[in-house]
């Protein structure tokens, strides 16, 4: 009964999506897009929730780790496979100019060799995770030493620095032009292609969600929440706070790196300016709106944001405004964030104590 009512509370969201579907021209396309975007955002919000919601590290540089995964995928995938695919080396020598040609040829190669395509895909995900984790390791240096306000500035600025370098240093992702990323699912066609790709992405996203959930519902989760509550006391009770924060940032950033790799494959191109600080704040909105310190909240927050975002995308088709309608979405986003902070700081789903053991709970008084 109680559970039923709780579910009812979140019914408006699916209903809203159904309403959106009814006015779109291509419902399957709509859901595929929705699910794909949900995969990246779920991974980003759940990892930020691990860092901020559970451990108390205000990671204002989320986009940097996301970008790390995307950049490594964009930069390496085509170049790595090009020799195998028999791409003319002249094209590789002038990659900035010919990257679309190289990418297309590698894609064609992937259409024939599903095995290599999938191995490459897997390799890039792993590389994305490794690059993310390494960036996380680097970020933990200031995260351990600096106060929250200084840390926020450092992380935002470092992310911007990475973006500026990516924009200008051509060998990375071909500078301002952006790089073409071959499609490892090219051996599938039509609807199958989209369904399988999105299915894989959702699968990876929910696995990371389950990983984080398992992590926080363990003694590790209990420890990071204790550190969030009081660092000095946690240290006095034997917790190596420095090491734990580093571990958390590495895990969170690895997840963000994988999300970046997935995004690169999904978008088919990597552009430096896709990784503006606004993306970090979108993820913050999700976590705070959904409820920090609660993975269900992070998942719901991501969904709520997407509902808003998709609505604007659809509205764009039906109305012409003298201004870019995306800005309305950002205004709504900002307002939602401010209002949540002011009137419901605990978010849609507040944090609940985690009960690890079931054995004695039944016969203990005091519930």
């Amino acid at each position: 009964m109680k559970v039923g009512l709780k579910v009812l509370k979140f019914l408006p969201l699916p209903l809203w999506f159904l309403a959106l579907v009814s006015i779109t021209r291509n419902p399957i396309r709509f859901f595929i897009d929705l699910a794909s975007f949900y995969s990246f955002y779920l991974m980003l919000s759940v990892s930020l929730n691990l860092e901020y919601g559970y451990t108390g590290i205000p990671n204002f540089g989320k986009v940097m780790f996301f970008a790390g995964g995307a950049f490594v995928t964009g930069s390496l995938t085509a170049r790595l496979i090009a020799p195998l695919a028999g791409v003319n080396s002249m094209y590789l020598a002038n990659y900035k100019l010919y990257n679309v040609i190289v990418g297309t040829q590698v894609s064609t190669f992937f259409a024939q060799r599903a095995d290599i395509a999938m191995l490459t895909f897997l390799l890039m995900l792993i590389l994305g995770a490794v690059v993310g984790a390494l960036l996380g390791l680097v970020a933990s240096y200031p995260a351990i030493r600096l106060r929250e306000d200084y840390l926020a500035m450092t992380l935002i600025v470092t992310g911007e620095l990475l973006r500026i370098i990516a924009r200008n240093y051509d060998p990375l992702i071909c500078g301002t032009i952006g790089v073409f990323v071959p499609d490892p699912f090219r051996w599938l066609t039509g609807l199958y292609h989209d369904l399988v790709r999105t299915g894989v992405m959702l699968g990876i996203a929910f696995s990371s969600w389950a990983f984080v959930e398992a992590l926080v519902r363990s003694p590790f989760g209990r420890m990071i929440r204790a550190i969030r509550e009081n660092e000095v006391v946690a240290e006095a009770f034997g917790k190596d706070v420095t090491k734990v924060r580093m571990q958390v940032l590495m895990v969170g950033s690895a997840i963000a790196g994988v999300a970046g790799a997935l995004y690169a494959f999904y978008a088919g191109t990597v552009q430096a300016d896709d990784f503006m600080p606004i993306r970090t704040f979108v993820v913050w909105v999700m976590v705070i709106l959904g409820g920090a310190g609660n993975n269900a909240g992070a998942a719901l927050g991501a969904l709520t944001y997407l509902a808003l975002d998709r609505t604007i995308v659809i509205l764009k088709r039906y109305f012409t405004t003298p201004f870019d309608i995306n800005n309305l979405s950002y205004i709504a986003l900002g307002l939602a964030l401010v209002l949540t902070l002011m009137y419901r700081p605990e978010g849609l789903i507040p944090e609940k104590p985690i009960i690890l053991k079931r054995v004695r709970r039944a016969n203990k008084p005091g519930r």
Partner: protein
Amino acid sequence: MISVEVLLDSLLFSNLITLMAIGLTLTYLTLKIPNFAHGDMATVGAYIVLTICRTYSLNPYLTFPLAFLGSGSLSLLSYLFVYRPLSRRRASIVVLMVASIALEIIIRSALHVYADIMSSLQRTYYRGLTYYVIKGFKEGTLKFGIYEIPLVTITSTLAVALITLFLYLFLTKTKFGIAMRAAIENPNLASTLGINVNKVYSTSWFIAGGLAGLSGAFLPFRIPTSPELGWELLLKTFAASTLGGLESVFGAIIGGYVTGFAEIMGISILSGPPFNLSTSYRPAIPLVVLIVTLLLVPRGLTSINFGRLIRRG
């Protein structure tokens, strides 16, 4: 070789950053948060002046007070309706920062909407607005011997000098200014003495926003203004204020000039031989300044005990 033009450019740019940094420091002193929406106060100021100049064909300088008032009021409103209620509820620093980021997004997006409408009315579809684009105002120059000094460089330098003087007199010679320093240092004691701490903080936020608006009003003389400009300026301002220690107006002025000169002179050196770096790396310079400051001297230049350094050396 550094030319006179580069030096003058650096001076102009530093003036603008310094005005911003003084304001940022004033708000930081009250609630101890870096206000992420501070950069947008400058853009708001720029658009106020651009709009009035377009509509009434006035000399831009005549509308500067309105830029000050407009941005100041916006900053004041954000304090009264967002930051103050949150800090009264003992929201954490992180929550206050997130709120200021949210306001930043709202203001910037609203400016985008406004700029879109403005340019569609004007049928220019041109985003980088300057006074010249809008009404054909050309910045004047003054001749000193063989050098021509742009008027805006002179006026902005004068503005910084006057504001510094005014702030100094206000904070040390007037009762309200002293009360402001008192309330910032020890709000509890100040309130038991009958000082209205809320009024003091509100004034800080108003002046801070106003100075940013003023800085923004100088922008369209030279720099094509777009709604994104505020965010870019903000990161430079963070660099300047942090370099100055975030807690001292005097430090902010030093930080502003160091950062401004570092950016303009730095890129002019780096883009020439033997480095031959692309000038598009220019925005990276203040970011590097900020990161290096935070990692080496997180409490800023004013925290370094130079006397001791010299004695040791």
